[in-house]
């Protein structure tokens, strides 16, 4: 370190300044979460009962985003759709997080045969055309939303494992890991207390990417008629169904589409921001 520029390490990090984009993203995500939890208690408009008298009407006082091809309230369905928009991607992202943290860190730390086997498995998974396979499986099993979630959860882990394994491999060669080994700290502690904590920013950013990817993939499957059952308020499904009234009430298709984009972008932005903050919190070393 002699001769280098010693950046101020002695002082507490100055008070956190949150960028506007992050505030906006957080507010949006919060709104989605509130909608998923408390939606049914404050929206009493039915989300399923067709109303042939007002099919494809433009937004009004009664219907904030107008109605769809069956005369159902788009806003109510949008709020009801938050549940599927959150749960599936959350399950997929959490499973990716957990599996990569367990397997990826172990493969990176131990190396050798465990690493070789894991990485060949990952290579195999990468060779599979994930979305195509998902379409085939979901079609064949005639499964709905949950089968789609399961298939995507499995087909999502390989990227996470590869990423985390690489990061763990890098940490493994650092002196602090050797120091821990010499002082007799157990492998388990080294892997899951030291290494995992040091690559947490990567895990978090990866979690966000997974979530956004899964959201879009699930919506895509639903759009193709795979996944969510017809009739359920699901954003991807609403996108398809709303098309029929595109000229009467464009919001029937636009609103769920925009919601998907906003949620995916918000989650990604926050993941990115968390990564940069945590990575710079230790002085970039």
């Amino acid at each position: 370190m002699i001769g280098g520029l010693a950046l101020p390490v002695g002082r507490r990090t100055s008070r956190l300044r949150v960028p506007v984009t992050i505030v906006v993203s957080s507010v949006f995500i919060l709104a989605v979460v509130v909608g998923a939890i408390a939606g049914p208690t404050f929206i009493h408009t039915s989300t399923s009962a067709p109303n042939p008298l007002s099919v494809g009407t433009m937004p009004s006082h009664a219907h904030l985003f107008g109605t769809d091809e069956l005369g159902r309230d788009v806003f109510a369905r949008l709020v009801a759709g938050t549940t599927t928009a959150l749960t599936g991607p959350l399950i997929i992202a959490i499973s990716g997080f957990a599996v990569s943290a367990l397997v990826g860190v172990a493969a990176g730390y131990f190396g050798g045969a465990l690493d070789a086997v894991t990485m060949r498995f990952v290579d195999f998974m990468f060779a599979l055309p994930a979305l195509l396979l998902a379409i085939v499986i979901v079609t064949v099993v005639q499964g709905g939303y949950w089968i789609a979630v399961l298939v995507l959860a499995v087909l999502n882990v390989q990227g996470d494992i590869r990423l985390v394994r690489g990061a763990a491999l890098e940490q493994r060669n650092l002196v602090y890991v050797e120091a821990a080994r010499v002082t007799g700290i157990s492998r388990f502690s080294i892997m899951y207390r030291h290494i995992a904590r040091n690559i947490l920013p990567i895990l978090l950013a990866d979690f966000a990417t997974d979530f956004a990817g899964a959201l879009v993939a699930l919506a895509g499957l639903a759009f193709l008629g795979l996944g969510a059952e017809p009739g359920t308020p699901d954003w991807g499904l609403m996108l398809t169904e709303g098309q029929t009234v595109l000229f009467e009430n464009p919001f029937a298709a636009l609103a769920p589409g925009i919601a998907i984009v906003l949620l995916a972008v918000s989650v990604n932005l926050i993941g990115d921001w968390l990564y940069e903050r945590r990575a710079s919190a230790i002085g970039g070393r």
Partner: protein
Amino acid sequence: MPPPSGLEEGLPSPSRSGPPLLEVTGLEIVHRPKNGAQRTILAGVDLEVGLGETIGIVGESGSGKSMLAKAVARLLPREVHAGGSVRFRGTELLTMRKRQMDALRGSGVTILYQDPFTMLNPLLRCGDHIIEGLPGGTRRGRRRALRDEAVRRLAEVGIDNPDVVNSYPFELSGGMRQRVALAAALASDPALLVADEPSTALDVTTQAEVLELLRSTQVARGMGLVLITHDLRVAFSVCARVYVLYAGSVLESAPANELDREPLHPYSLGLLVSDPPVDRRVSPLPMIEGSVPSPGDVTNQCNFAARCAWAEDVCRSAAPPLVTVGPARKSACVRISEIRPALGRARAELLQASPPPAPVDLTDAVLRVRDLRKVFAHRGGRPTEALRGVSLDVGRNESVGLVGESGSGKTTLARCLVGLETPTSGTIEIAGLEVGAPAAKLHKTVQIVFQDPYSSLDPRQTVGSSVRETLRANGCARGRLDERVAELFAEVGLSSSYLRRLPARLSGGERQRVAIARALAVEPELIICDEPVSALDVSVQAQVLNLFTELRERLGLSYLFITHDLAVVRQVVDRIYVCYRGEIVEHGTVDKILDAPEHAYTARLIASIPGATASSARPLPAPMIPR
């Protein structure tokens, strides 16, 4: 050697009537991050480099010396801004147009950086690095002529093998790379070369060669040279004048020999005496308490007041100006006229030699290594023999030095001893325990303190928790944990307020103390110290060395002290083993080895210490084992 073509048109007549080559006045450098507090790096520095003059800028990390170099070449990072004036041959650089500045860099001012491993583009051949920098006129020559010119330029920096122009940087050793980098920096025939720690990353013997090369090229070309270093001895060996920089201000400037003879600022004195002498053992080592402050924290007072033994109220009431105290000498100490005699006396007292250590009985050795070999197999290549039959002993409560340069195998030995590598053959016995025995038992008797305290601690774990975890892994009762952690921190001289800090909020010396506390948590009998102070600032180095000595006396520890620094070894070690190409070539008591070395390699190591009398040791092959 080619006549440097820039000389004729570039330099004005040698009469000293014109403006100096470089004149820096009131240079301020401020770091203004987009979000975060503004921070002063340099607070008004004045300096001057005459034509063909060599000056040294000496300072510890955080003094702002590297930023000073960058400011001169207008290469400051974004968010870092310079104010004041930097005049090169009378032309203001700070306000110069960007294009003009680009042209001036290279032909006028060039920087040579510290790290030869990252300074060269790994995809360019060495010759191309040089050709790229040749002055515009010569650059449009035929390929053949350019190559010949590159060969000539390499010869100027002492590389006689013309094939080097075609090799890639990774094929060369650190010293060779630094030479190529120097040749590339000199390619455009600069009038001023700023060398930022050019020898720090190199081995001792290579370091001496590179410094000698810098000195001779500077003389031959008659260019100005600014040498930036943390090491006063390096500055003295090359420079005519030295500026002592501390926390963003110049505290003293003087001709090198004068400063060596009589420092006129308490900080210069501190720097001089805390750099351990090679020729005698001083115990305890004189040191400067505390660590370098941030320039912004010491405004309106003497920067050094908080660590100065002579500080009085007058020092803390205003920032002292740099005033002339003698012919060509300036000091920023307001009390210098009062304390001048005291400084002189202090220096004599502090450096009094202490008696040599008493010999230790080796029948009861803590560490016994016999005929240790380690061969690294390379896939598809010839195996490397890192250790070729090493035998050594460390007695109980003895401190033993293992000296050698990089590639000599000393770190491999250390790693074998703590179980991070498995030796190919030979035996290691630690406290009667054969190594190869279960690792769990091994680490209770032997511990290691690593070289770089910046990477040996988990950056996300508070230092208290780090020591606590080690205690728990070694069977400390839950109820006693807090008590023991506090004890260990006290043992290494850290207050308990440090417990909850992350490593990034500690200075290098403090981190090394934590690393020592962590090693002590295991209650080992032997601690292997792998270059434990080489990454630390001079003033902090002495603190840590004293801590090692003190702990040894108090806890009855034994040390195996691995280092390349003979001055350090002199202070803390009873016996020395000299390691060269995987073998022990010489061993004996410190005084015997350092004062009357028998092996040529030992003699060369001693001669390489800056400031040591140059001896005509015959050249030896590099300490690396050829593959």
